[in-house]
């Protein structure tokens, strides 16, 4: 009663009196509930700037090939333009001896490319994720230097390049895993919650059995049976990743299907699929959206942990987990562990800040003020 009293008094629109259509004082522009949530999110500065920074980092990492690569972006050789980034050229193109893909870091080729009117534009960091610096002045892993800004790992690969590519892989993997998990979780939760009864009972028992499977052992077994790849990992982790979310969606559907607006839609003859899609789903998305950043950081962490254990992506793939395990193996090469650690912490922190802000923005108890 009390809360209702206050809520009513705060209602923006005055009650129209009778049939006499007196214009009602309403000026605030009409905004949808999701738009209001976004405005609340924007008011949380930490969360908002975390989102901006995270998006910027992801966008930059999508152009990793331009930023960090062992191939020049553009080459002008004897009056002709070459684009090694998009096309492989033989060494013979640049008057080398062998018909193999050109190694642009080879001092011989480098020299050819700078002779006379020839020139080449290299990316800011001229190493790819797998490029081994054969010309390092120190034994591997070598400390940060002018050649390798963050040093190299124990195989002589540039650390900065690996971090850039590893970050990209982690984020894209996390995004893919989250999206697959959300879609599967929402579908499973929606069906269980909306149908209720036996469907719900069977679904819940299945999930209990499924979630008690030892996930890590399955991963070890599968990584022994199949060639490890990012795709396989995505499939295996998705098989188990949808369950946490589907419980929340199920609960929301169970609650919302009792609401009068759903009954009214049923009475209008709206089909079950339409009711789920148009009426219940938009009102059940709050936990889904709130958990997105947290799920994504959990996915990134899962990939990193598996890589650290050597059960993750195939060897040679740039990955943060593999770098961490290198850092552990070479404990005196501090640049490996510290820089990888920093990248991970920043990524996870940004996601957590975003998650906190989202949770506050979608909290139904918070007012708009």
């Amino acid at each position: 009663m009390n809360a209702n009293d206050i809520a009513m008094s705060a209602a923006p629109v005055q009650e129209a009196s009778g049939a006499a259509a007196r214009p009602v004082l309403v000026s605030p522009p009409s905004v949808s509930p999701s738009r209001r949530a976004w405005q609340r999110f924007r008011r949380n500065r930490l969360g908002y700037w975390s989102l901006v920074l995270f998006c910027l980092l992801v966008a930059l990492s999508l152009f990793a090939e331009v930023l960090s690569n062992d191939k020049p972006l553009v080459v002008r050789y004897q009056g002709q333009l070459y684009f090694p980034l998009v096309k492989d050229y033989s060494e013979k193109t640049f008057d080398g001896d062998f018909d193999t893909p050109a190694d642009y870091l080879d001092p011989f080729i480098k020299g050819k490319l700078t002779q006379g009117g020839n020139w080449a534009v290299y990316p800011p960091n001229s190493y790819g994720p797998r490029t081994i610096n054969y010309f390092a002045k120190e034994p591997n892993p070598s400390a940060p230097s002018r050649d390798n800004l963050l040093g190299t790992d124990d195989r002589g690969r540039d650390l900065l390049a690996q971090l850039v590519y590893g970050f990209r892989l982690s984020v894209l993997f996390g995004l893919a895993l989250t999206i697959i998990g959300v879609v599967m979780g929402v579908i499973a939760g929606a069906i269980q919650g909306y149908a209720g009864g036996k469907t719900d009972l069977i679904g819940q028992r299945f999930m209990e059995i499924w979630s008690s499977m030892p996930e890590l052992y399955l991963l070890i077994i599968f990584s022994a049976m199949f060639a490890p790849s990012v795709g396989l990992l995505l499939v295996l982790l998705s098989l188990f990743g949808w369950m946490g979310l589907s419980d929340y969606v199920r609960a929301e559907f169970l609650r919302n299907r009792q609401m009068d607006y759903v009954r009214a839609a049923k009475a209008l003859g709206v089909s079950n699929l339409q009711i789920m899609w148009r009426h219940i789903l938009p009102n059940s998305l709050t936990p889904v959206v709130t958990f997105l950043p947290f799920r994504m950081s959990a996915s990134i962490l899962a990939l990193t942990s598996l890589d650290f254990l050597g059960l993750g992506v195939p060897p040679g793939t740039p990955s943060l987990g593999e770098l961490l395990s290198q850092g552990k193996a070479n404990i005196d090469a501090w640049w490996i562990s510290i820089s990888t650690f920093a990248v991970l912490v920043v990524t996870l922190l940004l996601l957590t800040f975003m998650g906190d802000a989202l949770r506050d923005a979608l909290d139904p108890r918070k007012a708009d003020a």
Partner: protein
Amino acid sequence: MTATSTAACPLPAHENFPPESRLSAERAPSLLLEVKNLCVSFAGKEVVRGISFSMAPGEKLALVGESGSGKTVTALSLLRLVADAATSGQALFEAPGGRSDLLALPESTLRGIRGRDIAMIFQEPMTALNPLFTVGEQIAEVLQLKQGLAQAQSVQAAIELLASTGIPEPARRARAFPHQLSGGQRQRAMIAMALACRPRLLLADEPTTALDVTLRGQILDLLGDLQRRNGMAVLLITHDLNLVRRFADRVAVMENGHIVEQGAVAEVFASPRHPYTRKLLDSRPARDVAQASAFAPGVPAVMQASHVRVAYPVPVPGFRGWFRRGEFVAVKDASFTISPGRTLGIVGESGSGKSTLALASLGLLKFSGQLHAAGQPWSRQAAGNKAIRRAVQVVFQDPFSSLSPRMTVEAIVEEGLLVHEPGLGLAQRRMRVEQALAEVSMSEAQFPGLLRRYPHEFSGGQRQRLAIARVLIINPSLLVLDEPTSALDVTIQKQVLALLQRLQRERGLSYFLITHDIDVIRAMAHDVMVMKDGEIIESGSVFDVLDAPRHPYTKILVAQG
């Protein structure tokens, strides 16, 4: 209260006035409570805007207003129970230790006053009582804290308090948990708890609103009885003018945070000075329905039910429950006919099965028996029901849950067209939506950008209009109205009922009206059925049933209304 309970609950010195000296304000030694210029605001929004009133010892003052008028906040702020509120003004209370300002007292002193000198009872006893403790324990706790009684004494005193509120078998009820008591018993238990220390002032916040009509009178009589016996003052907060008329000495009418009028009840009710008071007093729904011809044999019925029975499965306790389920019969053998242009009202208390019958008539629940609508029975397949769905529509009670908060007005209202007239183009649909909205007196001129607005921007009455527009758009012949105005304020209720009456006259609609409110039935119905415990105990034309009730239960209902 009995003599023994007085012994167990020792009277403070100030309680020893002869009770009759408190009955009238003029003879009272001084004012018990004097509120001066009280303002309460939440985050800069003023809810109570400078109100002043006073209460003599033993006086019954009613604070009347619609939701949002600030009456509950006023009562709560007297005990400083509102969180995050900024209050100003004075509330001088004659405490045993002397006159003091409730709004300025230190928290520790105020805690002593709460419960001992000023007690409060709330609208919903289910949420106001702690579900983890028995009723007796909760009352005994108050006695131990405030009166310093020993454990054994306090338990005995609690039982006596329960007995004084008229609960049968008080010793057994004292060991019951709140959920094991009925609504009326819970409210009695809460009253017993509030009166445990014989407060000088009782704040009663809508004490009967959550109760069924037949219980309301009993609880009110009990309050009046206890008030006389204990000589306490009662501040009754309510929106129900009938209660005020029956209970209070004086009345203060609140609107929008102001007290617009106060005075003796008889005076204010006989000659209200403020227009708002007049509007409130005038809000009893008026009967303005077409005298539709009685059931004619030639005209097909809009809905015809015979021997409809609805049962819910309920778990069977114990080992047997593993293998089979019991059933709870919500509606037993209901038969009725609704003719075109007429309104059939069902009246009954909560739990009588009237809403279940409504859902069954909409084909939203499984039932057995015959139920024809628009000339055909409900089918098991959704596709077979399309014609009936178009003919039979529903308006629910709670305007806040009956509209999806994430859909625009246009999307909500046009939904029926998408299902039943999928061939319509965008422009045609929009035109129909605007027509339907115009029928319920909502227009673009009143609400700029109406179609793109969301439900949260509208008040309860406006939402109910939107819910009506949503069903009107597909031209149904029968509307099931499930307590269509119970959640609305009285003045808004009158408007919505007038709208429904107009629609019936203009379109020849039939209504199947479910309500607990005799006034609404009187204003709207042609025929009426009285339901109790799933059975139809009396039915007939509205005047026959209400003016000459035969069943004893109907007599109580009519007397309370």
